[in-house]
């Protein structure tokens, strides 16, 4: 995600065209983090829309202390976690449906580039992350993929930092086992 400072500043001044540019430049990154946290494309699309609605209201609060992407990822994970809570309260099981992932090309693809992508470690990693239990998935995505601090993660999830560390440890062990073949070939 690469959003110029001038665009951010214009958004903060209420420039609607700049806000549309911001959406264009960052929606794929917001969607990607959302999908990695919530684990299914429908909810990720809902989270992404909610993030930008929220941004209309809170973008003035961005003061430039952190990178904009870091700040936007924090807003995104917050919205995504709120949705997970709402879902679990309604007792709806959120399942990952791998066949819906736009990243996953058709299995019988004859395009060599598509086939390579399908087998790439990144694609395999994303699908392995999606198959983790929600508690492990949220922590490993926030920490290992997006580099958030334990304090931030624990705060957003409403858990102790120690609990976050244990979940992270288990998530990494599970991923290593799931991806043994790919990782050994790296």
């Amino acid at each position, binding site marked *: 995600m690469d959003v110029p400072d001038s665009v951010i500043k214009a958004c903060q001044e209420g420039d609607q065209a700049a806000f549309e540019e911001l959406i264009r430049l960052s929606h794929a990154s917001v969607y*990607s983090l959302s999908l990695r946290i919530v684990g299914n494309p429908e909810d990720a699309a809902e989270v992404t829309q909610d993030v930008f609605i929220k941004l209309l209201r809170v973008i003035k609060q961005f003061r430039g202390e952190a990178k904009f992407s870091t700040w936007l990822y924090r807003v995104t994970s917050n919205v995504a976690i709120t949705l997970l809570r709402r879902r679990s309260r309604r007792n709806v099981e959120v399942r990952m449906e791998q066949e819906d992932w736009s990243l996953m090309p058709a299995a019988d693809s004859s395009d060599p580039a598509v086939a390579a992508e399908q087998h790439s470690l*990144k694609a395999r990693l994303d699908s392995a992350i999606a198959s983790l239990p929600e508690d492990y998935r949220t922590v490993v995505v926030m920490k290992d993929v997006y*580099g958030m601090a334990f304090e931030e993660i624990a705060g957003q999830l409403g858990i102790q930092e120690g609990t976050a560390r244990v979940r992270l440890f288990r998530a990494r062990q599970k991923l290593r086992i799931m991806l043994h073949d790919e990782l050994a070939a790296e």
Partner: protein
Amino acid sequence: MSEKADAMECVKARELFPAFDEQKFPPEVLGHLEGCEECKAELSEFRALSAGLGSLATADIQPPSWLLGAITERVAETARRRAVVEGARRQMGRVTTGASRQLGEHRVATGSALGLAMLAGALLFGRTRKHGVKAAA
């Protein structure tokens, strides 16, 4: 060294791998790693996992093609509604201050608050209707 002692050392070493923190490996684990191919191989898998996870942040997943339009539309609609509500608030603020001044001049005392509220309400209603947006917005 006996096979059993080796196994113990392997278990001890491997417990540390998922922490992704080789700086903190004690000397005996580092020593063990030099001579144990299995542990070395497992450690390198964790290294590859760490690097792979870190590289995902810049690897966006393609959103569905309809999403960009949907976001832009919802944001524009929200911004429009907000502008109307804020405009109405400002209008009401002006009406209230103006009417207060007038009422003060004419020394109207009782019942003025109600009259003021009704006047503000009427203007607010007129304004929101003109913009074709429901009062609930």
